[in-house]
């Protein structure tokens, strides 16, 4: 008899779809003559992401049909709950926008290879899988899939030294961190005898977690902290982002990050929040401060955005520190918020950068308001959102985060302190984001050479991102609700969530069966 049921295939439907399209693209590539534009493949892969999203909707429908759907499947490997669904929707969307942004970029850099798109799709598979995996083995593999594909993509402008350098840095440090993560997993396996998160959760909550478990958690935090670029493991970010192709930065600063955050959530909340509260607190404060202050004097837009992404990871960690349901939903929402605005920003960057990524310094944006109103306008929206001006998603994201931070019962003063640090940071940050706006609108252009016309695909990408930024900023109900649902679904695993930070051993886990 076949122990695997149909529903199990539904549980990994998006992954299947993405893989299928990836393979199609990969196969189709040799059929095109070398040197020809790969736009067509790009469109196919775009369709792939859309199909993946459709698949997710099918999953949602299924979920509504039978309740057991969100139980663990594949012998406790994956768990497609609303938490996973949220990221299932988010990540392919990101990938889609990045592909849109890449279409003209590749031609501009004259890179003709379909594998590019295939790699994006496969990487997406990994990320999507990360968000639904609840078994460390699977998590590890998914993580590696997304990482390795991004290593390769980062290296894609391989004629240029900067690109390869960023790739090697990313690769070496990435594997370095992975080793830490693995060591943590190993110790965790030693502590609990299992690598399945629910099991670990159960083991840790029942008998008093020993030193091994704590050390294991620590090492896993190191590994994942590297992936989400939170201080003090953020240090690779600026170099890698500067060297990598802009659309790929758009992807890797949002997609893998979101996925990694998902994993971090699942892992962290399998353990005792009291263990890591101060860890996250410090890391959050550090990330925000280092990120923002590092960005203050940046003249390279890509580096600037890299630092800003560190800072935003910090804001996100604030929500982690809140460690209750509102905190979770805030964190989940923030990933989406950050993705929306950051992808948009990098899309603009990748267009302005033009062939060989020549124009990436702030001065190249001078007088953008005249040279290309559309780009300037959209970029302004993204910057405002990154600052956290109301009516943009950036503001709501921060708002939810700090609301969560202030609503925790334990450590109230610590959290108020963290909130103040965060808010002051966002005020400081407004300076360098504003700089970009200032340059675009208040300076006269230095290079009279007109910007390349914005292609339809890029327009679409920008408009999509901008609309998402504004829409989520003004009418966020649906997304906010689904993020809350996600948080609630994480709760069975994180059953200590509502009474989050309390030293008392929480009630035993409801068996996830």
């Amino acid at each position, binding site marked *: 008899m076949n122990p695997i049921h149909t529903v199990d295939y539904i549980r990994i439907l998006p992954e299947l779809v993405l893989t299928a399209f990836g393979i199609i693209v990969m196969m189709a590539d040799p059929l095109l003559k070398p040197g020809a534009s790969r736009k067509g493949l790009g469109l196919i892969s775009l369709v792939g992401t859309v199909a993946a999203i459709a698949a997710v909707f099918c999953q949602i429908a299924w979920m509504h049909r039978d309740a057991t759907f969100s139980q663990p499947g594949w012998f406790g490997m994956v768990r497609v709950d609303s938490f996973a669904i949220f990221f299932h929707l988010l990540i392919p969307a990101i990938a889609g926008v990045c592909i849109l942004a890449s279409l003209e970029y590749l031609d501009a850099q004259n890179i003709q290879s379909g594998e590019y798109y295939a790699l994006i799709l496969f990487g997406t598979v990994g990320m999507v899988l990360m968000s639904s995996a609840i078994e*460390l*083995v699977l998590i*590890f*593999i998914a993580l*590696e899939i997304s990482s*390795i594909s991004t*290593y*390769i993509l980062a*290296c894609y402008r*391989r*004629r*240029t*030294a*900067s690109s*390869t*350098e*960023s*790739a*090697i*840095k990313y*690769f*070496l440090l990435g*594997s*370095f961190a992975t*080793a830490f993560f*693995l*060591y943590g*997993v*190993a*110790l965790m*396996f*030693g502590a*609990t*005898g*299992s*690598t399945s998160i*629910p*099991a670990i959760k*159960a*083991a840790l*909550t*029942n008998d008093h977690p020993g030193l091994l478990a704590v050390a294991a958690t620590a090492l896993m935090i190191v590994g994942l902290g590297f992936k989400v670029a939170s201080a003090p493991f953020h240090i690779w970010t*600026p*170099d*890698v982002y*500067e*060297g990598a192709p802009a659309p790929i930065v758009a992807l890797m600063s949002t997609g893998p990050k979101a996925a990694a955050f998902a994993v971090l959530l699942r892992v962290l909340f399998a353990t005792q929040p009291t263990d890591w509260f101060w860890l996250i607190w410090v890391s959050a404060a550090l990330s925000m401060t280092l990120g923002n202050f590092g960005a203050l004097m940046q003249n390279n837009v890509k*580096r600037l955005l890299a630092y800003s992404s560190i800072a935003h990871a910090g804001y996100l960690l604030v929500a982690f520190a809140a460690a209750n349901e509102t905190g979770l939903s805030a964190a989940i929402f923030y990933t989406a918020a950050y993705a929306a605005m950051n992808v948009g920003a990098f899309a603009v960057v990748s267009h302005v950068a033009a062939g060989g990524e020549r124009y990436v310094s702030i001065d190249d944006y001078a007088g953008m308001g005249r040279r290309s109103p559309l780009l300037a306008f959209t970029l302004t929206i993204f910057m405002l959102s990154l600052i956290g001006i109301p009516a943009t998603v950036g503001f709501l994201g921060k708002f939810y985060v700090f609301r969560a931070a202030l609503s925790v019962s334990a450590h109230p003063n610590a959290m108020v302190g963290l909130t103040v640090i965060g808010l002051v940071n966002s005020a400081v940050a407004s300076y360098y984001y504003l700089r970009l706006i200032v340059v675009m609108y208040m300076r006269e252009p230095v290079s009279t050479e007109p910007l390349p016309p914005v292609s339809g695909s890029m327009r679409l990408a920008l408009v999509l991102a901008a609309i998402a930024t504004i829409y989520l900023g003004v009418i966020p109900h649906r997304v906010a609700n689904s993020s809350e649902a996600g948080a609630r679904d994480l709760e069975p695993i994180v059953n200590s969530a509502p009474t989050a930070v309390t030293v008392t051993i929480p009630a*035993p*886990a409801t*068996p*996830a*069966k």
Partner: protein
Amino acid sequence: MVPLSWYLILSAVLFSLGVFGFLLKRNIITIFMSIELMLNAVNLSFVAFANYWNMHPRVLADGQAIVPLSGHVFVFFVMVVAAAEAAVGLAIIISVFRTRETLNVDRVNLLKL
């Protein structure tokens, strides 16, 4: 028979040596090797723990028995990943060499500040 902690300490030592290698070696390939060393250290502890749990089976709160062998499986997957990483990593190293004509990691520092 050997105490578990011996194995673990050996793995810890190997891991630390791997980190040392990463920090102190200049040749990118060697650095990559020290990463492999770290992975091996991890594998050792996996196997050791698997063995330990095999001797001390226990039942989790939700009535599931733990599966000691998953440690071995994990090692298996780690090796797969390591192989994949090796392929990609070496490819990257090659393209770095093509653009830089050097394998000295200290010379690969265009991107800074």
